[in-house]
């Protein structure tokens, strides 16, 4: 039997494609019922009995326990802030944009419940600047939510107040790093901060701050409404619940698919996204955004399980962006384009990333454009080891944020799966391929 989606956070936007973002459609489908319920509970009940018990892990990429993150806030230190990471920029990830444009009330409800659970009265939505329609829809949704008492002062007569500020970014991938985001929100260049202190202790304006992703927050109302145990019953192992995967590249039906974790890559790519188009074969796929090491057809039956992909496949589910490439694709060209992305987006704060990302891009450019030199792969691995010591996943880090090690992901992938093809591009005779050069 062909695999199918399990629609929880994507239910309304799939059921009502023509008006899912309006307050009317949202209310007809039970929006803000979970908020009413949450306001009858204590913050601890929401955090512990529901969100922590649900096993929900952050959907932005790092996969950290959401309830655990909330629990790190120090007692008695106020004000504290909620920063919503809506700066979706990991290449080939497009789930948060859909959630913002097409179900903004679900996100707002998640924000209000979360703020109530962490005793915070001001939330900032850091929205990617290029999302003009998203900004418009979210702004309208916020106005409607304020007008009906779901946000603002004395929410639904509970005495709980929350201001929600929509803040548009202006084009910077690194602002999606949680500390880069906070710097940007303070009016600075989005240069990530050294941790510790972690944002929970000293975040926005040096106050305790929770930074949560859009999909994570959009899931919270469902957990509160149906119970943490219900959510924990979905999924597999420590990867509970559902996730939205953005599938793109050489597939017949590129798009977002919300599936129960534990489904296989094969079911996602072939049953849901329609498989490889034009009757071609799969050559390789990138399982979790540009920062994740690539996987091969032999990994198709692996489960969508964050820990399995990290521990057994030495990669990661990351942001849930699955990029699929057919047999006509040049791995060197894809690696170069990803390297170019990292070189462009490196903020320049840490030397290994600032200098290394440019070197990687230059060397991969010549390999991908028939100018490769016999020593190029070794050269990449040699200086790459100064960015990622050991070159083994999960990547060791010599930089403040994860952008640094991510620059080596395409290189490590080429070495792992396409060594012979790359050496040939570099002019190393096929007879010597496989031997150390």
């Amino acid at each position, binding site marked *: 039997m062909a695999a199918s989606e399990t629609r929880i956070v994507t239910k309304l936007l799939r059921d009502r494609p023509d008006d899912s973002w309006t307050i009317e459609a949202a209310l007809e489908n039970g929006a803000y019922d979970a908020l009413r319920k949450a306001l009858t509970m204590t913050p601890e009940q929401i955090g512990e009995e529901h969100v922590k018990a649900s096993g929900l892990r952050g959907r932005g990429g790092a996969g950290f326990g959401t309830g655990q993150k909330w629990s790190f806030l120090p007692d008695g230190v106020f*004000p504290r802030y909620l920063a919503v990471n809506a700066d*979706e*920029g*990991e*290449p*080939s*990830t*497009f789930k*948060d*944009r859909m959630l913002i444009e097409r179900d903004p009330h679900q996100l707002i409800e998640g924000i209000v419940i979360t703020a109530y659970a962490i005793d915070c009265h*001001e939330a900032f939505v850091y929205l*990617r*600047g*290029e*999302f*003009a*329609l998203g*900004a*418009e829809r979210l702004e309208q949704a916020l106005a409607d939510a304020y007008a009906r008492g779901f946000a603002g002062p004395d929410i639904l007569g509970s005495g709980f107040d929350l*201001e929600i*500020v929509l*803040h*548009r*970014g*202006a*084009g*910077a*991938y690194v602002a999606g790093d949680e500390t880069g985001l906070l710097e*940007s*929100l*303070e*009016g*600075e*260049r*989005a240069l990530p901060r050294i941790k510790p202190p972690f944002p929970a202790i000293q975040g926005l*304006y040096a106050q305790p701050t929770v930074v949560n992703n859009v999909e994570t927050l959009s899931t919270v109302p469902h957990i509160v409404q149906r119970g943490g145990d219900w959510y924990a019953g979905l999924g597999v192992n420590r990867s509970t619940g559902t996730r939205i995967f*953005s599938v*793109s*590249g*050489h597939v017949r039906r*590129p*798009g*977002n698919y919300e599936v129960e974790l534990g489904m296989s890559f094969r079911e996602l790519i072939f049953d849901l996204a329609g498989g490889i188009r034009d009757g071609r074969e799969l050559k390789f796929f*990138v399982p979790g955004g*540009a920062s994740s090491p690539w996987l091969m057809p032999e990994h198709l039956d692996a489960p969508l399980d964050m820990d399995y992909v990290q521990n057994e496949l030495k990669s990661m589910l990351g942001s849930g*962006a699955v*990029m699929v*490439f057919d047999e006509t*694709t040049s791995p060197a*060209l*894809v690696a170069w*384009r*990803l390297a170019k*992305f990292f070189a*462009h*987006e490196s*903020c320049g704060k840490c030397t290994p990333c600032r200098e290394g990302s440019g070197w990687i891009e230059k060397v991969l450019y010549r390999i991908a454009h028939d100018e490769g030199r016999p020593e190029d792969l070794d050269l990449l691995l040699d200086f790459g080891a100064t960015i990622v010591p050991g070159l083994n996943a999960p990547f060791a880090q010599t930089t403040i944020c994860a952008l640094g090690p991510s620059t080596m992901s395409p290189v490590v992938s080429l070495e792992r799966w396409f060594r012979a093809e790359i050496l040939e591009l570099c002019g190393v005779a096929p007879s010597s391929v496989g031997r150390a050069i």
Partner: protein
Amino acid sequence: MTFTPDNLARARAAMARYPYAKSAILPLLHLAQDQDGWVTPEAMVEIAVLLGITPAQVLGTCSFYTMFKREPVGRLVVSVCTNVSCLVNGGPELLQSLRTRYAGDDDVFVEEVECLAACDLAPVLQVNYEFHGPLTAEAAEALVDDYKTGSRRPRAVSGGRVG
């Protein structure tokens, strides 16, 4: 240019939403760019005065973000993605043909951009931050021409609604 009275009121309202006024720097830069089509040196000075910081600090933040244009770019900003999902679906070819077609056109600024988070529409582009895709080179030119002639109404160059 400096803010019109209406936009000055908007700027002050934006500043009031943050515990510290400096947080309003990106909103104010967007506002200036929506008004003038780019971020002028005069706007950076005015924003500095409003926020109580130096113009160099405003420039420092402004120059970090790709959406802010520090020289005139014309009425229409056409942003073409060439990151990997678009790469394998014709994004670079789309970029090349649009660059050729609108070379020397003062109205149209064609730029290569990183992933726009719309890979289901690959190859995708934005015209003043409105998404369009998937597009052939011919369809993209017809689209940009529609914006040029006014049969499609563009957003402001920072993505805000005009009027």
